[in-house]
């Protein structure tokens, strides 16, 4: 019998039986999450099912992150409804200013070797901590919130071997953009993307989260990273002390597709409008003016991201005709960039800091683009209209490329600014 992939190992553990790719299984869900864009519909579906209680309120998390603080009466009413519903039913609620659901789940809830479901496509992020984490729609989430179970097809896995030393400021974002550029926006559809190799081992948790976060942009069901000493340490520092077994794929596991990336040769990468797989090296883009630079989101809104940004912006100014928006992924990140003086560096350079949340990434407020404008963002998606205007152009890059471009006012290779 062949060995197991990471996905098969986690799902065998959760199903309490030996499972392999292709099996359809019903499993217990450890953490289930929805936000202000998807929770109202999930609660409506629960009502239709005739269920008005959660299977376990401690395992249900609702976050108002997509449009926060509220920019309209309609959204304020949705937020009020969610706040009241959560209070009455005793589940976890994280409101204005707390941050992006994914970041809060990482900081507070996710455990390796469990199933995590979210009514948000970027739930694959949590695979970086060794959870089988995947996004679903509101009806599936309603079922999970009501019964604590879901059905899954054990996915085939895509082996992504990353080896070689990344040359700063080239980072995890450049790695994942490169991968998506090579395999395409549907290259891993229905599959678990499994990231491993010496480069992944040497990455911190923040960088691994960036890899896993974008698995869905290649169609992936989840994006898994190994569980090692770094994962266990991260969990212990974030209120999840306990015994968590290490996780890696077996030597003889069966992968239906594979790709190898040489990190040492990698340049800063960028995705051009309007698909995430439209990827080039930054050095190939040529002269292109940028109206807005946005640094934040569940992809790249963590402390480590802002640390690199501050290194590049220190003592410099944002270009006159360019706006720099910065948005920490959570209140903890916000507090830390204030304590370490990073917030001051960014503000002195000319950045505007948004309160923790999803912000302009989903195009509802806090930085909607104008007609014909160009935005360089550290987010994960550049679809037409994503940032609220179908006549705008969204480019995706690492925080380092975004910071360098904010200084020059045009798409810029960060290696020119990094010493």
């Amino acid at each position, binding site marked *: 019998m062949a060995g197991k992939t990471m996905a098969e190992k986690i799902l065998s553990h959760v199903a309490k039986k030996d499972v392999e790719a292709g099996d359809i299984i019903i499993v217990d869900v450890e953490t289930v999450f929805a936000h202000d864009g998807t929770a109202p519909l999930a609660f409506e*579906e629960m009502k239709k099912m005739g269920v008005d209680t959660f299977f376990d309120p401690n395992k249900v998390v609702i976050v108002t992150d997509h449009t926060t603080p509220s920019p309209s009466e309609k959204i304020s009413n949705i937020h009020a409804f969610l706040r009241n519903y959560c209070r009455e039913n005793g589940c976890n609620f994280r409101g204005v200013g707390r941050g992006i659901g994914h970041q809060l789940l990482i900081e507070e809830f996710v455990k390796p070797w469990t199933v995590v479901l979210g009514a948000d*496509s970027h739930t694959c992020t949590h695979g970086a901590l060794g959870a089988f984490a995947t*996004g*679903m*729609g509101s009806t599936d989430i309603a079922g999970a919130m009501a019964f604590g179970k879901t059905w899954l097809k054990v996915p085939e896995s895509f082996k992504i071997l990353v080896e070689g030393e990344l040359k700063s400021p080239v980072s995890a974002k450049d790695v994942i953009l490169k991968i998506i550029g090579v395999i395409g926006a549907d290259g891993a559809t229905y599959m678990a993307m499994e990231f491993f190799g010496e480069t992944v081992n040497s990455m911190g948790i923040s960088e691994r989260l960036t890899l896993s976060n974008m698995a869905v942009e290649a169609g992936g069901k989840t994006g898994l990273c190994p569980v090692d000493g770094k994962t266990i340490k991260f969990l212990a520092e974030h209120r999840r002390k306990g015994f968590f077994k290490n996780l890696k794929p077996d030597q003889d596991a069966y992968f239906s597709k594979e790709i190898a990336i040489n990190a040492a040769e990698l340049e800063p990468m960028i995705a051009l409008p309007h698909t995430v797989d439209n990827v080039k090296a930054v050095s190939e883009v040529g002269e292109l003016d940028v109206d807005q630079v946005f640094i934040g989101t569940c992809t790249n809104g963590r402390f480590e991201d802002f640390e690199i940004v501050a290194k590049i912006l220190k003592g410099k100014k944002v270009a006159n005709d360019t706006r720099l928006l910065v948005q920490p992924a959570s209140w903890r990140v916000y507090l830390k960039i204030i304590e370490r003086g990073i917030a001051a560096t960014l503000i002195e350079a000319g950045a505007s800091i948004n309160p923790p949340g999803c912000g302009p990434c989903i195009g*509802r407020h806090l930085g909607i683009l104008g007609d014909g404008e160009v935005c360089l963002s550290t987010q994960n998606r550049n*679809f*037409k209209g994503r940032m609220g205007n179908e006549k705008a152009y969204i480019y995706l890059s690492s925080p380092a490329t975004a910071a360098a471009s904010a200084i020059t006012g045009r798409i810029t290779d960060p290696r020119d600014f990094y010493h």
Partner: protein
Amino acid sequence: MAVIHGKVWKFGDNIDTDIIIPARYLILPIEEAKEKAMEPIRPSFSKEFEKSGIIIAGRNFGCGSSREQAPAVLRALGVSAIVAKTFARIFFRNTINLGIPAIECKEACDKIEEGEEIEIEPETGKIKLLKQAITLQGSKLPPFLLEIIKDGGLIPHLKKRLIIGV
């Protein structure tokens, strides 16, 4: 399950959920939001679309967000089935959960023209092109998913199972 008969509305590759229903319309009730379906690339779609029509698309239909409003607005417009070269995973699951057959067929998008009348047998995955008088073979849905579609979606399906106690 009954054979689905309808007129074809054609789309290309990588039709994402921000195209199917832009995020700013998510706060609208589905009956209002459906007027905005496909707005970024085909603003007149909701007005032109005729009830019980069938969407034919290329690769990776429904990629992007998990928003269930995407298949929900299509259902509200009366879309009776979606045939694509491939579907994005979450959209596929949402579509089935709402009771809409989602069939994968590699040739459909290249062989079928906009406005053509076709018939689909959900159980067998057969797609008949009435004017061209040819039949294409699409994917066969597993029995587990066909049951959900037959019951009209996941909620009626779960309810039925809970009541019958299967």
